[in-house]
């Protein structure tokens, strides 16, 4: 299996990137997991229940759970995972995902946010905060989590990697380095990590002690190849079974009589939009935003410019996630675009200030795409856009506040953490959400709706609130919604038994079907 980028770390409580998660997801398992339909299903926990207010969730673990080395796996191991995530000394990248657990934010925040005071804290403070954490192993098979607010989506969050039960005695021997040694990866997932060659190769073997039975494959290898053309050549050569494709390779694969049958594309749970800084002219004017939405030909962009590796969309929550809506509002329409611009307070393209469009120049092919997009606005709206190729980290830094947030981004967007509309809507667009604050979106009506959705325990009512909220987003045009990114691969016909889900970004089936994927080598 091909991967383009070797991860910086793969320590469950510290990782955040998909290329890190797809290593851990084979070797570990959370309390729940996502099936091939992105539904939350039992994993290490066989059942769970919420109290009436929805502020406490109790997980019941399966009987006789074992680690890959045969040692018992208990609720205490999961408690440690939560504690370690919230620990200020761990400082993991997904710490904040657990801030709804009582005491987690306080524990993690011991250092304080006030930059004028020293960041140190005493052992006593540390111990007190650790004790105050609202997670408890009642017995070997029961884990109780206290939440600060009703959070019916918590069973889904429990699938996430921060819940992966690393072994305390191993981690504490070397909290920073333990994950580099394959011997330390004693996990509870369907596979075990058996070899780590930095930058080159990670090998897995089937875990005989997995509760769900032994997976069909004896082993998996992740091979790291930076250059996409080299990886594809290696695939042609028969060295790799699954290879991730870059957009320029797609026409090449599709025109190849042999490879075209092995091409696999499916939409992922990610939505991209043209992000505007809503505090900066001219995008303070909704009519201008409308014009930019009308003037963008999503079909041609996905089909031609991106060679079919995306699906156009006009709404935010992607299909397949509860709360997604269908709409054709503000779709491609050059005339409506010109008209909207004429109706704006600027009266037409001549009245507009200079518009600068930023994009991440580290991404392969981004310049071509930016040139095409800017060309569209030039030809259809008569707006000349200055392109700002920006190095990735610089761009991230610019996006941290509305003062520096780029006037216009080629693409902004969201890749889901867990398939719940709360993750899509509340985490991103609420007035007090970090993301919405960066570019200045705030709609109180929207906030009220998602808050009702977040706290309601009735699944159907929740979806109703989220759908209404999603419609508000469409109406407000905070940044025209463009497309859902697809994952594109070539997969050897010898590989069988996998079902890709929208969350499988790195290779088809690592979340839903690691047990059934198989290879039948032609002799």
């Amino acid at each position, binding site marked *: 299996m091909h991967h383009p980028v070797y991860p910086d770390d793969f320590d469950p409580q510290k990782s955040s990137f998909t290329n890190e998660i797809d290593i851990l997801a084979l070797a570990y398992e959370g309390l729940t997991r996502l099936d091939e339909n992105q539904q939350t299903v039992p994993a290490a926990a066989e059942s769970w229940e919420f109290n009436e207010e929805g502020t406490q969730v109790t997980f019941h673990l399966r009987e006789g759970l074992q680690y890959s080395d045969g040692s018992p796996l208990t609720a205490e191991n999961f408690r440690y995972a939560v504690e370690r995530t919230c620990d200020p000394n761990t400082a993991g990248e997904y710490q904040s995902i657990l801030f709804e657990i009582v005491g987690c934010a306080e524990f993690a925040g011991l250092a304080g946010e006030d930059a004028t005071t020293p960041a140190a804290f005493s052992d006593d403070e540390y111990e007190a905060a650790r004790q105050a954490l609202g997670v408890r192993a009642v017995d070997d098979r029961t884990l109780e989590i206290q939440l600060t607010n009703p959070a019916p989506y918590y069973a889904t969050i429990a699938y996430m990697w921060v819940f992966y039960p690393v072994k305390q005695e191993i981690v504490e021997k070397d909290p920073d380095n333990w994950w580099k040694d394959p011997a330390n990866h004693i996990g509870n997932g369907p596979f075990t990590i058996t070899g780590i060659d930095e930058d080159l190769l990670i090998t897995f073997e089937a875990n005989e002690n997995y509760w769900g039975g032994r997976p069909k494959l004896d082993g998996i290898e992740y091979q790291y190849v930076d250059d996409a053309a080299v990886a594809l050549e290696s695939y042609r050569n028969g060295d790799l079974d699954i290879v991730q494709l870059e957009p*320029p390779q797609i026409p090449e694969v599709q025109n190849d009589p042999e490879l075209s049958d092995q091409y696999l594309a499916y939409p992922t749970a990610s939505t991209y939009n043209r992000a505007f800084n809503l505090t900066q002219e001219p995008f303070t004017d909704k009519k201008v935003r409308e014009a930019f939405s009308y003037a963008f030909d999503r079909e041609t962009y996905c089909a031609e410019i991106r060679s079919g590796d995306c699906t156009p969309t006009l709404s935010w929550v992607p299909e397949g996630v509860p709360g997604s809506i269908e709409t054709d509002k503000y779709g491609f329409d050059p005339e409506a675009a010109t008209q909207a611009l004429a109706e704006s307070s600027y009266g037409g393209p001549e009245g507009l200030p200079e518009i600068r469009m930023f994009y991440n120049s580290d991404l392969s092919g981004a310049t071509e795409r930016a040139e095409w997009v800017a060309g569209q606005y030039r030809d259809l709206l008569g707006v000349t856009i200055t392109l700002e190729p920006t190095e990735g980290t610089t761009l991230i830094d610019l996006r941290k506040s509305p003062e520096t947030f780029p006037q216009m981004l080629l693409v902004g967007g969201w890749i889901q953490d867990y398939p719940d509309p709360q993750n899509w809507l509340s985490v991103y667009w609420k007035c007090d959400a970090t993301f919405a604050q960066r570019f200045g979106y705030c709609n109180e009506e929207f906030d009220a709706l998602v808050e009702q959705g977040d706290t309601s325990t009735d699944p159907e009512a929740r979806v109703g609130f989220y759908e209404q909220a999603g419609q508000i987003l469409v109406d407000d045009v905070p940044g025209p919604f463009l497309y859902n990114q697809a994952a594109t691969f070539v997969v050897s016909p010898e590989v069988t038994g996998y079902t890709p889900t929208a969350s499988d970004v790195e290779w088809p089936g690592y979340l839903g079907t690691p047990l059934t994927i198989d290879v039948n080598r032609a002799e």
Partner: protein
Amino acid sequence: MATVAPTAPALDQQAEVSLSRVRASRSLRSDAWRQFRRNKMAMVGLGYLIFLSFVAIFAPAIAPNNPVQTDVRVAGKYRQAAWIENPNPAKSGTWDYPLGTDGIGRDVFSRLVYGTRISLVVGFIPMVVILLIGVPIGLAAGFAGGWLDNALMRLTDIVYAFPALLFFIIMQISLGDTGFGRLLNGLVLLFVTLSIVNWTGVARLVRGETLALKEKEFVEAARASGAGAGRLITRHILPNALGPIIVAGAFIVPGAIIAEAVLTYLGIGLRPDVNLNAPFPTSWGQMIQDGQKSYRNQSWILIAPSVAVALITLSFTFVGDGLRDALDPRENA
């Protein structure tokens, strides 16, 4: 007259040498041009460079299509070069797009024509700047020796010690968005960086040559016959060190063009411009980089700019060789 006799053998040689120098210097310029014209390859090279300058200046008149504008549905994405048939009508070659189209349907030939502009400038200006800085410093250090040599060479040590690519990347990232970094789509920053990184190489090369040359008999001879430092350098050392200098100069050109391509490969190249009448919409380096990714779809995106870079390198090499021969004092004698 009478003083000649005692050291006859040595003086004999000296006299011969300095005589030839005198003769050379008298008619250096006009002779050089005559000599240069005699070198066919050099003239071809020069002719090609002049031709390229015309292409660069009159790009709008030469290019059949606008280099930045496209209707991908008409032009077709990755359309093949004109003489290549393809069953798919959107990909089959047509003379509307002589070298086919790129990933978003722009005409490769027109982009090649416009690309001449940046690539000529990117190749030529740093070369001139580098030679103007590097050669005098190298000559001064090598000739004067002593503390001046020491100071200048320790300075080059520092500049040299910077890993070149690191310097490029960090300069681009930290200065790329300043007003200075934005001048001419980032061209000026590129020039400055290229020059800073490369002058030391030339300086050291020239110093090494100078050190060797100034010990040579004919230089000793000229010195003995009373030539001043300036004269020694310009008349005796520089002309004899020209060979390596010219090679170095000729190699800076493709080096700079390629450096620009590599920076684009790393995502920190020049700023693209989508203005319909943008003077510098693209460069050969960027085209090579685009072509590397998609050469299996449309190989001419890669071949065309690569050939262009190779040809410009050859021309500079020929012109350089011709210049060296033309300026060589002995050849003229």
